[in-house]
């Protein structure tokens, strides 16, 4: 049966050649290990979010009078609605973690260096879009936690001197978080951000395939002075299918197992106190905490007395993060082990991030 389908497709799309060139003869670099699969795992994680998101959209109503009840209905009224909602909730946190691991791995592998600056840029933009999706998504259940978290986050741009308040009002659709904000965030979360995410993803994958997978710093220790385009072939590497594909599959199963683990033993792990209370614009809860991936930034802003310095520093870090390959263009050394200054700085920053996050959790 399978052979019959293959024979039918062959003269129409040249299936055999596609499988041969794109999967079996497409080689992964030598030393491609399980960490290298993280990009693919992030993609699958995003896909899981999209699927659960579409299912949620069938029953969710984006109006303040009905949003909370519609989410309640999904969680407890619709059969297996709890599975869809909780997977979306747990997945939204794990996809950020996976993306972070992926970008740290890419950084330590020096895979952002010439000629792969654009790959890094599209990836960094996708990361920002992902975080924006998380921010817009948390308002949608219209609960106390999301409402007040959004109030805090949407007032962050006000630190800017002249345009700050206008930007904040633009994001919110007004001076406070209202029904207009909900409508706006719903559109962003469901269509606008996914559209841009898809666009960046297409570019990201195009760059990866066109330039070839980045060789490890052991193989190619120095950035080559290239004047012409050159595609990496990895003749001494292993074929992508089945070797690397199996590794990818394993990591995807591991990701799904992690989601299931949290679903079984701690389904409300990522649901803070105000999750099951209807949003009340007049009643500010005692403690407003952002999700864990923003705790470090929140903690920093809280501890530095000057708001401008606190947020300004973070904007600076963001800009350096986005355009790092360009800042680093002068350096030809690809291996981070041979760059102790950079290694110390980055590991220092990561430790600072972890420390601030843990501090924020208390």
């Amino acid at each position: 049966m399978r052979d019959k389908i293959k024979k039918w497709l062959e003269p129409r799309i040249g299936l055999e050649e596609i499988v041969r060139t794109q999967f079996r003869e497409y080689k992964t670099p030598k030393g491609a290990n399980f960490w290298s699969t993280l990009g693919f795992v992030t993609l699958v994680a995003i896909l899981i979010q999209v699927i659960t998101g579409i299912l949620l959209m069938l029953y969710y109503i984006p109006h303040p009078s009905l949003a909370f009840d519609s989410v309640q209905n999904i969680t407890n009224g619709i059969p297996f609605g709890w599975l869809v909602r909780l997977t979306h909730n747990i997945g939204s946190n794990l996809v950020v973690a996976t993306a972070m691991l992926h970008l740290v791995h890419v950084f330590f592998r020096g895979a952002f260096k010439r000629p792969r600056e654009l790959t890094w840029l599209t990836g960094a933009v996708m990361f920002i879009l992902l975080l924006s999706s998380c921010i817009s998504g948390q308002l949608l259940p219209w609960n106390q936690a999301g409402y007040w978290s959004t109030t805090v986050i949407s007032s962050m741009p006000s630190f800017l001197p002249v345009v700050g308040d206008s930007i904040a009002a633009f994001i919110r659709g007004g001076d406070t978080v209202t029904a207009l904000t909900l409508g706006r965030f719903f559109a962003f979360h469901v269509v606008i951000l996914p559209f841009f995410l898809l666009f960046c993803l297409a570019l990201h994958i195009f760059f990866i395939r066109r330039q070839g997978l980045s060789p490890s710093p052991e193989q190619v220790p120095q950035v080559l002075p290239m004047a012409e385009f050159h595609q990496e072939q990895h003749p001494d590497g292993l074929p992508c299918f089945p070797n690397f594909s199996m590794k990818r599959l394993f990591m995807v199963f591991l990701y799904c197992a992690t989601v299931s683990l949290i679903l079984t033993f701690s389904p409300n792990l990522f649901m803070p106190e105000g999750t099951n209370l209807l949003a009340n614009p007049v009643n500010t809860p005692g403690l407003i905490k952002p999700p864990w991936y923003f705790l470090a930034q929140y903690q920093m802003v809280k501890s530095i007395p000057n708001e401008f310095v606190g947020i300004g520093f973070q904007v600076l870090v963001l800009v350096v993060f986005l355009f790092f390959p360009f800042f680093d263009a002068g350096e030809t050394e690809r291996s981070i082990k041979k760059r102790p200054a950079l290694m110390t700085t980055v590991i220092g920053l990561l430790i600072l991030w972890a420390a601030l996050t843990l501090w924020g959790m208390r």
Partner: protein
Amino acid sequence: MERRSVLKTTIALLGTTTLLSLGYPVLRFLSPTVRRQSGEKITIRKEEIPPGSARELVFEGTPILVINRRETGFIALSRICTHLGCLVGYDKYKGQLVCPCHAGVFDLDGQMIAGPGSAPLRQFFLTVSATHVTLG
């Protein structure tokens, strides 16, 4: 080689089971919920509720009031106050529904006019004929 083919078969089986275990919930999630009619019907003769008065009864497990409003006719409203759930009572002198717990006041359309909360009282479908009113 044999070990590999056993592994492959096991994985294929597990994979299929997983797909089915996820497909079944999605299918049930997507299927429209069938709203089963309880079939309960209550018919009251119009004379039993003179204009300006109301009758308390229980319909589909909910305590309700059937009110014969002077200007606008019959209406069936849930007695469960939308604030915290106490039962509202009919004040025929003021033409209002009052909740004894926190003095929530509703008009005879079920809209809240004073007190805590804001949602209107749930309305039940009422068929009015020449001589009778029917619930359900």
